[in-house]
């Protein structure tokens, strides 16, 4: 139970992908001008992160490790992620055109998203969580990995939505020409990061 809570807290707050690890900054800055597109991007990233972890984790531990080809993990993982994204795009297009219109357009962008490759690489080494819990190769399993990936995606979506809300408000104010666009977005992101630094002090148990 402690591990369960620690994983959720770590993935969403204390080791948030955007504000602490700085993975997935390209969509964070590029697709956060409107809340609706931020939500679409966040959901798409969460979905791909979860499915990618469900595929790459068994492939690494049960196929590549016994065969001794674990040094090729970057090539394998990027190919698995690219195929998953392609497949998802086709499936969503077939099943629900309306969902495709809101979310599908973000899918091709996700292949070159650090957050997805970052989350799959995360479970290859020891993973330390708040409350001095460490998931090493003996205690790590597919369930924990999938849970971490799901909540890391939720944390990503959370920060995307906060950011897009602040940027929508920023539209009402006039900024000097040199700092409009990316610079003012980064100053906004700086404040979100400072707010998330508070969560570093979370402890579990005693």
């Amino acid at each position, binding site marked *: 139970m402690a591990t369960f809570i620690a994983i959720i807290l770590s993935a969403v707050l204390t080791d948030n992908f955007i504000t602490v690890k*700085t993975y997935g900054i390209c969509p964070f*800055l590029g697709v956060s001008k409107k809340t609706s597109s931020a939500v679409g991007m966040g959901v798409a990233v969460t979905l791909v992160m979860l499915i990618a972890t469900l595929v790459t984790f068994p492939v690494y531990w049960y196929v590549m490790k016994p065969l001794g080809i674990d040094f090729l993990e*970057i090539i394998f993982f990027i190919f698995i992620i690219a195929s998953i994204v392609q497949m998802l795009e086709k499936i969503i297009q077939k099943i629900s055109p309306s969902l495709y219109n809101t979310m599908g357009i973000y899918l091709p962008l996700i292949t070159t998203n*650090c957050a997805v*490759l970052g989350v799959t690489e995360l479970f290859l080494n020891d993973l330390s969580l708040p409350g001095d819990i460490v998931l090493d190769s003996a205690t790590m399993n597919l369930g924990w990995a999938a849970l971490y990936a799901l909540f890391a995606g939720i944390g990503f979506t959370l920060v995307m939505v906060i950011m897009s809300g602040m940027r929508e408000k920023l539209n009402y104010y006039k900024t000097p020409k040199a700092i409009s666009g990316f610079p003012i977005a*980064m100053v906004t992101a700086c404040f979100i990061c400072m707010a998330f630094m508070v969560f570093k002090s979370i402890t579990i148990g005693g």
Partner: protein
Amino acid sequence: MNKYKRITLDGLIFQNPTFMLVLGTCPTLGLISSAMSAAGMGLTVVVILTLSNILISLMRKLIPNEVRIPCYIVIIATLVTLARMFLEKFVPDLYDSLGGFLALIVVNCIILGRAEAFANKHNVLESAVDGLATGMGFTCALTLMGIICEFIGKGSVFGLHIMDFKVGMFATPAGSFLVYGMCIALFTYVINLFERSKRVKANKLARENLLREAD
């Protein structure tokens, strides 16, 4: 020769990947809290970008247009795997400080972007020069911001202790965001000034020519 000068200036200044195009932001924000890791990241990217540009330019007539992106990704992923093995063996300190961002060079938009926008249309020499120039633009930007962040955040530069006063926030992602944003603003401002003065000069010249013709 003029062509290579233009490619170099484009990569270093006018299309600087960090300040003008804002690409490859994840390693930038993750590593500029220390000047040494920022410079190490930059130099690794220079090597990988130059090699990938050369290889892709050599193979640009062999790769079918429909599957070019997967082909580029395989080439880049192979180079990154090699670079990771090399660094782990020979520069273990840098390997540790780069952490997860070393594997993430694969999904760095700069490398795929240059492959797609430049290397598959130009010859080998031009692509190599472009890779070097763009990579050096990335390295200079990262090192500059690394020095600023480390100086304010840790009171040191490249690990050398300079002063006791420090603002811890600048050694965290929050400070990295702030410094990166302000550097982009300053860079854009200077470029705009430069271009405006060039335009003013051109206008003045045109007017003088007109006057001379009128005489």
